[in-house]
């Protein structure tokens, strides 16, 4: 507040006072994109809690049954991890294709991403089945409960991502995913990359660190 | 003006009154921890009191300001509504001041706090008596390791924690089911009894006497009636007590027709003996039952646990401390733990009515969950055994022999 403004006298907002030129949002990010970032920040704490729980219980099979680390199939999980990581790449390609207005190509990449996600989920379902067959069910011991909860939660997140991707593909098939929707695709991409990053963390913490 | 100054005087008065009310009349306040009876509680109190004093000073200053400032700067009736007071946006030096000064005060308090934390966490000497304190719904069990072999198996008792006065006693606190908290306010602060964990705490009572407390972590239905009593004895009395506690109870033959012997038959043939242990009677059958702490044994966590009754009449309360076994009268209390040693004393001091009422219908006397819920949980607490009046008389006669 300067003297000059004060000298202007009482400010009664008059018609036309409204400044038309100010940016659409204060941060420059759209509300949707900002909200997704904020949401993902919150998700970090959810996975943080679950990962901490797993770390606390990973060696605890007092109530019997094998520990997760005793029955891992690291090569198998490595491959499915690689598949999920690849889907991040195809997601990037999809985003950039849509942004360039290449709707058809974007659709292909989106479908590929969703497909790779489904491969990952199928791998997880197979892995879970194998574990149960080998005597490690959800309720077998504390370690197994923590393992299934953590990886299961991640699986649910991937599944939600797949639903979003498939919805985008459907929209695209109906011709509603033009360049003006690039940001929507980008936001779904943000979510997808986040889920991938979380998997890298889980894969490291759960599978690789002894 | 007079009203204002009146109110200013009022605030500190309230504070002083509160303090006085809180401190006074300690004889009737058995759980008042501002009246410590042992070094640990005293250490805490010596730390707490100055802090309370500092808080009191700040209380008086801030509440005084809360009254004084608005009254001093209240809008005058004749004030010109169209003139606003000077708009003061802040004062950096002042604000830094009331950031730093409280921080310094708190750091000083913090230093003394840390010192006390580490003082209190010092292990008692190796020669100290070592007792395992086990909480369960809704009573406390105490197991003594007298021969220092690391096993708490020489004495198993309940409700009354008996300790030698003037000595540090090392407690190892744990639980068989949910989280409880062990607290004898006049001797030390509380420590949670967490299943699967063993938490250390030490107690020392300055003088012989009885110090009460109770469970302070919500532990379900009868949390309110999970009481604690630490009974401090002189060293010689304590030694006598330990010797007495290690005696086993006699068995009775089937052809004995005394009332106590009939009670013995009731005890061993009814459900009593499947939960309660009496050393010399059924402790061998249930060895596994009592020795492993129970935590890892499925099925024992919820039920199947009841106080060891070998020396029931050497305790002052029963049912988790809810009821007096020794009548709560001056003369009976004066007998201490020996109230049942002489038959005359026993007859005079036993609260037989309470004991009989308990045997008649335990869940009616204390909130418990003695009936299992299929598929969800087992018994928690003593069920109604539907004893006849005759059986109750017999049982009481038998229990009276368990000195």
């Amino acid at each position: 507040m300067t003297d000059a403004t004060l000298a202007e006298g009482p400010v009664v907002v008059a018609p036309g006072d409204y400044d038309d030129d100010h940016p659409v949002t204060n941060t420059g990010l759209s509300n949707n994109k900002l909200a997704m970032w904020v949401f993902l920040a919150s998700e970090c704490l959810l996975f943080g809690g679950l990962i901490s729980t797993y770390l606390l219980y990973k060696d605890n099979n007092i109530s019997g049954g094998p520990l997760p680390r005793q029955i891992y199939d690291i090569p198998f999980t490595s491959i499915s991890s690689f598949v999920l990581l690849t889907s991040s790449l195809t997601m990037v390609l999809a985003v950039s294709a849509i942004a360039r207005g290449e709707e058809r190509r974007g659709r292909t990449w989106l479908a590929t991403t969703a497909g790779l996600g489904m491969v990952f989920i199928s791998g997880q379902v197979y892995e879970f089945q194998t574990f149960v067959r080998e005597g490690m069910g959800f309720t077998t011991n504390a370690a197994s409960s923590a393992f299934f909860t953590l990886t299961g939660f991640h699986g649910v997140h991937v599944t939600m991502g797949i639903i979003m991707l498939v919805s985008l593909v459907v929209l695209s098939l109906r011709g509603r995913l033009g360049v003006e929707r690039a940001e929507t695709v980008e936001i779904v991409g943000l979510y997808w990359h986040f889920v991938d990053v979380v998997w890298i963390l889980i894969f490291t913490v759960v599978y690789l660190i002894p | 003006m007079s009203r204002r100054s009146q109110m200013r005087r009022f605030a500190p008065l309230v504070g002083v009154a509160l303090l006085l009310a809180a401190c006074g009349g300690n004889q009737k306040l058995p759980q008042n921890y501002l009246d410590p009876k042992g070094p640990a509680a005293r250490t805490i109190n010596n730390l707490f009191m100055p802090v309370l004093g500092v808080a009191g000073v700040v209380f008086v200053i801030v509440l005084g300001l809360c009254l004084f400032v608005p009254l001093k700067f209240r809008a005058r009736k004749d004030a010109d509504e169209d003139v606003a007071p000077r708009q003061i946006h802040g004062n950096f030096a002042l604000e830094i001041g009331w950031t730093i000064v409280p921080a310094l005060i708190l750091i000083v308090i913090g230093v003394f706090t840390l010192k006390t934390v580490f003082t209190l966490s010092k292990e008692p000497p190796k020669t100290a008596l070592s007792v395992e304190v086990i909480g369960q719904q809704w009573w406390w069990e105490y197991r003594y390791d007298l021969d220092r072999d690391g096993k708490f198996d020489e004495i198993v008792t309940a409700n009354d924690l008996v300790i030698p006065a003037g000595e540090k006693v090392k407690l190892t606190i744990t639980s068989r089911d949910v989280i409880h908290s062990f607290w004898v306010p006049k001797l030390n602060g509380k420590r949670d009894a967490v299943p699967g964990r063993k938490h250390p705490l030490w107690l020392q009572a300055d003088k012989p006497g009885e110090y009460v407390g109770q469970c302070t972590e919500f532990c379900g239905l009868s949390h309110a009636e999970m009481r604690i009593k630490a009974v401090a004895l002189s060293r010689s009395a304590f030694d006598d007590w330990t010797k007495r506690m290690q005696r086993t109870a006699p068995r009775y033959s089937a052809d004995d027709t005394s009332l106590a012997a009939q009670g013995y038959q009731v005890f061993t043939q009814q459900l009593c003996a499947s939960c309660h242990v009496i050393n010399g009677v059924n402790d061998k059958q249930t060895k596994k039952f009592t020795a492993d702490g129970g935590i890892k044994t499925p099925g024992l966590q919820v039920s199947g646990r009841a106080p060891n009754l070998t020396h029931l009449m050497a305790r002052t309360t029963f049912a988790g401390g809810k009821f007096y076994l020794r009548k709560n009268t001056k003369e009976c209390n004066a007998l201490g733990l020996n109230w049942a040693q002489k038959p005359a004393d026993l007859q005079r001091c036993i609260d037989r009515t309470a004991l009989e009422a308990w045997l008649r219908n335990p869940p009616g006397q204390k909130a418990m969950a003695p009936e299992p819920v299929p598929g969800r949980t087992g018994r928690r607490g003593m069920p109604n055994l539907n004893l006849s009046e005759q059986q109750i008389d017999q049982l009481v006669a038998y229990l009276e022999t368990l000195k």
Partner: protein
Amino acid sequence: MALTETGPLALPSGDGAGSPRPLGVFARPRTTHGWRSWVTTVDHKKIGIMYGATALFFFLVGGMEALLIRLQLATPNGKLLSADLYNQVFTMHGTTMVFLVVMPLGAGFMNYLVPLQIGARDVAFPRLNAFGFWCFLAGGLVLNSSWLLGHAPDGGWFMYAPNSGVQFSPTHGIDFWNMGLLFTGIASLTGAINLITTVLNMRAPGMSMFKMPVFTWMTLVTQFLLLFAIPVLTAAQFLLMFDRLFGAKFFDVSAGADPLLWENLFWIFGHPEVYIMILPAFGLVSEILPVFSRKPIFGYPFMVFSGIAIGVMGWGVWAHHMFASGIGPYSVAAFSMSTMLIAVPTGIKVFNWIATMWGGQVRFKAPMLYAIGMVAMFTVGGLSGVTHAVSPADTQQTDTYYIVAHFHYVLFGGALFVFVGGFYYYWPKVFGYFLSDAGGKLNFWILFVGFNMTFGPMHILGLRGQPRRVYTYRSNYGYEFWNMVSTIGAIIIGISFLVLMANIAIGYARAKRLSAGGPLTAPPDPWDARSLEWLTANPTPVHNFDRVPTIRFGLDELFYRKYREDEGGRLVRVATAEEVVEKGDRTDVHLPSPSYWPIVVAFGLPFVGWGLIYNLWLALVGGAVVVLGIFGWALEPSVDDEGGPLHPDHGQPPTTGESGAAEAPVEQEAALVD
């Protein structure tokens, strides 16, 4: 400044460029009056009012529970409640007051005020906002349905494992607790995302972050705390739910589980939660004190940064709830120190509030009494809080009535006092009529006396060793007198709330009479206020601002539009309230349309909850409702081409064809009409 209208999953709405026909099956509702307008509303003001009203209802429920507790404890060996019932009542009292009263009251004020204080027309995601409210309501109803469906939760609001496991709590009460709080958690989380986005993105031109009112700042800090705290509770609740419903082993001690896992997770949520409850009140008091002292808030930067400091440090003190839990002397020492230090920023606030009044013209209107009362009562709670930070002393105090006294001084004397003061302050803004000032003062003094009679003696009871959460106590422990005083105090508090209700009813009746059937309108800017919410007419018109204001004077924008210095250096009034405040008569602002879908989605949730407890088929039905609702939501046309909800006569159909037409920038459109 676009009003976007998409859900968190950002599925595109139907009418993008080149597609005039919306994908949605149903048109958006258009009701503006009657109950339907409330059910389908996306207006942040209506949602704020609904939060407030619902919270008051639950306050009544929680207050009844409190009275039951006090009546039971009035005398030793009380017979009113059984142990079982008492445990349910105190669990529900705590849970209700925390999650269904203090939090939503804060949410109500934040929802109503934040867009107004930053000069916006609504929050960033209006439908999400409505969804949040309905989730909260669903959670509250699921939680309280436990009373009717057999057994209320009985593990304490902190729900320590393993007591909360099936083995020790075999009834379904705790499942209700779990489900209910998961749903209110969704409400908090969506609210946090929404309000953070709103504050960061939708401020009026010229309003930089450090020109935002303190209340808005405290809202931002609160929402960040919620954003990070709620998922921790959610994670813990999922673990508990899996244990209880599916036999997982997280808290099964016989399987080697560690009960301290729950304690840590719960308090990592639980301590920030304490600040989540108190920071909105800090914000409100920072609005009321300056207005009734006619001075700016003292030390605005200190107020803001101390709020942020509290928000940050609030994450490093959780284990002070566990000083007796056996966490070891080093942890105890560290958390003692951090807890000591968090008193510093709080102290700054108290001193700055007092300094705000210094040199002002203090007007003792009802809201001011509550604000001053809050500063005093909160200080009492803060000081007893410092004595808890002294961890050895805390091992004596914890789980006694001393703690009960402490947190009631902080949360009742702190938060609720200001919220009631906020009612008296904002009532004309929200409803267009005044609550009687004399009635408000009467209300205050009854409340003040009752409050101190109820909770003051609890300090003494605590020092005398009366534990919390006990349904009975013995007669010879020195507890009788003060318990009786406390119970009488609780009844007086009850009376003070009857006074509040009577005030509302009488005020309404009088206003109705005076308005002679017309709409209720309070005069503009009745308190000579300082921030933007009072720039709008009373009650706030549905479109908030006729013109989105441009901030020229920074903080206290409204005040400096009314006052300036004369030659003598005195601040004198240069414009009347009528000249400065908008008329609120604009009819051509296009607003986000109401929607059925938020309540539809939220409607499915209780069935998911009940279904998981009783029958999975019911859960499937509920889940189907949720999924259908989400699709309906996503496919709903984002604006109603047939006419806005408010102004069927507006001549300008929404412009289409530009990027993101779904998020038609209402401001721009308004400007077009000019």
